[in-house]
């Protein structure tokens, strides 16, 4: 220890390495229980304490923006629940610490089943969908740096369902990547470099998850798509098949798909072996060729940087959404069909609802960021600010 004073008040999460306060029961980044008490209650209150989003620290800079967290508060009872069983109606006292109803056995909805974060000009929604028992998607959305720079960091991760602890993998990956990106967006340095480093940090965080091998499941793994924006500059990075799109101020330029899926289908299309239609129809199409995790191919995240015409809208999503609008044309039509004055949270909710209505086959995550014209480029009337 080089700084005794700091060591007295700040320690490190044993799992993800994030700084934690002595009073913290759980690591804010990865949710690891830090005290005996927290460990004892893990799985009940522990899950609820794993919150989504990380606007703390930058909230003051955007005091005017709505700060609607849907994060549940820590439950009081030992079962951690105040609602009766959603299937058989057994009282909350009959829900066990693992979240199962002790009468009918059904796993009760978890805190991550539906989460929203609304930061005003940036917002995210994640939802369990209709056909998976758990939400293994996670997102992290955070404003960073001085307000005037419109710095923002977003990370969407989709836990690989054939891997163990997929929901923990996605959450720790998103948090670890966002921490790296936020530091650079809030300071100096290359957004592109930070994007690669962020994916590396996500890999380390996932590899640090303890897991028990089984003959059914692979080691913890997830996809990742990130966006780091500062002063109108954008860096998008990805590993796997979660996507990012850009919709600029000129509608005639259309919707731009920024990412290329690391998937079997895309590999067929890229090498010319199949058309997009043929590849998408193949049962193997969704197999991902790269992912974040211990047994992943050791390659850097792919990165795209741009300085787009502003204002514009950045959309990050997991395949739970784009499965229902796979081609860029379909996604463009889907976005066109939304109310033009929808705020980011409204759009994120509407797209989530669209995916749920279409079947909700997978977990759904949507992050929408409206990048405004930075103050330095605004006209004297401040017109560009009106839409906020």
């Amino acid at each position: 220890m080089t700084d005794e004073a700091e060591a007295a008040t700040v320690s490190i999460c044993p799992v993800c390495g994030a700084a934690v306060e002595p009073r913290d029961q759980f690591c804010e980044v990865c949710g690891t229980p830090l005290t005996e008490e927290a460990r004892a209650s893990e799985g009940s209150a522990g899950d609820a304490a794993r919150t989504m989003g990380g606007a703390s620290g930058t909230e003051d800079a955007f005091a005017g923006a709505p700060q609607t967290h849907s994060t549940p508060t820590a439950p009081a009872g030992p079962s951690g629940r105040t609602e009766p069983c959603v299937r058989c109606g057994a009282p909350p006292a009959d829900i066990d610490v693992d979240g199962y109803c002790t009468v009918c056995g059904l796993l009760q909805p978890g805190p991550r089943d539906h989460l929203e974060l609304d930061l005003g000009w940036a917002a995210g929604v994640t939802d369990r969908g209709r056909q998976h028992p758990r939400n293994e998607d996670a997102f992290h959305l955070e404003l960073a740096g001085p307000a005037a720079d419109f710095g923002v960091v977003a990370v969407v991760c989709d836990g690989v369902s054939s891997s163990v602890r997929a929901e923990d993998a996605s959450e720790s990956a998103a948090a670890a990547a966002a921490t790296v990106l936020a530091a650079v967006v809030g300071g100096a340095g290359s957004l592109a470099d930070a994007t690669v480093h962020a994916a590396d940090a996500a890999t380390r965080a996932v590899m640090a998850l303890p897991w028990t091998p089984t003959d059914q499941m692979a080691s913890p793994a997830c996809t990742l798509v990130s966006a780091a924006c500062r002063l109108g500059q954008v860096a998008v990075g990805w590993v796997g098949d979660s996507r990012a799109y850009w919709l600029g101020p000129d509608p005639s330029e259309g919707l731009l798909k920024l990412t290329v899926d690391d998937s079997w289908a895309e590999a067929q299309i890229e090498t010319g072996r199949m058309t997009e239609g043929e590849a998408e129809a193949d049962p193997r199409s969704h197999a991902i060729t790269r992912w974040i995790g211990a047994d992943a191919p050791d390659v850097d995240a792919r990165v795209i940087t741009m300085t787009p015409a502003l204002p514009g809208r950045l959309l990050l999503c997991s395949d739970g959404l784009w499965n229902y609008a796979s081609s860029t044309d379909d996604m463009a039509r889907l976005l066109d069909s939304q109310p033009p004055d929808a705020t980011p949270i409204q759009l994120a909710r509407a797209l989530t609802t669209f995916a749920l209505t279409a079947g909700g086959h997978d977990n759904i995550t949507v992050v929408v960021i409206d990048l405004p014209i930075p103050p330095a480029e605004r006209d004297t009337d401040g017109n560009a600010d009106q839409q906020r």
Partner: protein
Amino acid sequence: MTTFSAETYQNEYLAEGAAEVNAVVTVTATAGGGAAQPTRAAEIIIIDISGSMNYPATKLRAAQQATAAAIDCIRDGVWFAIIAGTKLAHQVYPAPGTLSPASGETRDEAKQAVAALQAQGGTAIGAWLALANQLFATLPLSLNHAILLTDGKDESETAEELNQTLAACEGRFQCDCRGVGTDWVVSELRKVASALLGSVDIVADPAELTADFTAMVEHAMGKATADVALRVWTPQTATVSFVKQVAPTIAELTDKRVPVNDRVGDYPTGAWGDESRDYHVCVTVKPGAVGDEMLAARVSLVVDDQVVSQALVKAIWTDDAALSTRINRAVAHYTGQAELAQVIQEGLEARKAGDDATATVKLGRAAQLAAASGNDATTKLLSKVVDVEDAASGTVRLKSRVDDADEMALDTRSTKTVRVTKSAP
């Protein structure tokens, strides 16, 4: 202090509409640091002294020697007694109606009493067990174990009398059963061992009795925790299809369920030392919707009504066939081992009944299963009863001449399983 751990091996993913949930739960008991607290324990050795034990006379002498060796293995302070059986039960040592704590002196007295035994009379296994039960009852809260040796059929009482005695003894003590020679009935001793959570085996050659008795008593002395139950919780709409121990041996527990309440039942597993056992639990549930996750069973280890460890058996309905069609290795392996035991017993029965066609099919399947699962001990026993032409396809020919002892060894040991190799990290 023994600590227990329980782990589940299963494919929790079910296809839409599927209702059967299978899991293997591995329970491991580990003795903690420091000297084990000696638990009050009692050991009763029951030897058959019916007239047939004189034919040949080496049988009784071997049984006497084996009992003496077993007495020497009884730990100081463990309460013990010796019963000799004919159509009645005779207490050989100590005074009728009591047990003695083992010491140098009492062990010597017991061995002298055993050496003086003479063979004469019939065989009434139930009567012997009833006396053992009476003696154990004088020592409440102790870890009770018995060894029963016989050489013949239970002919001096009715099957119904034996059944009644077994019902009275169940849960009171555990009993390992041995048949010496080939004139005893495997199914009869298996019934006793199964009711009293013990093993059954053949000791064809009386000369092997000493080693076997010594091993049994040493094994019993290694037990530290009495009356451990496997407690299975299932949801309201579910039913337990079966619960069976599948390693180290197959032991059906389904009918031994003791209801705790509507949704919870206890299955007795007897006393535990430092050991690991596998259980196959099969639960039939009301199918959920795709996307539902259900707790199909919560399997706990219960000692003195305290839950000491537990494992969860889950069901998740999915329309992803890649997930739902995976077969868990442990479940598949033990399903095979259970079938192996069953086809051996059915095959031998058919052979005895003169139905060679059925016997060939059943024992052929056994050869196939034993080879595929690496159960070399069973493969070896099988090869004394059938000529295996092709293990992979299960093609066998019945041997025309089979030694009775070999056939009985195959029958008694058919329930011995090999453990599944859990996946490496």
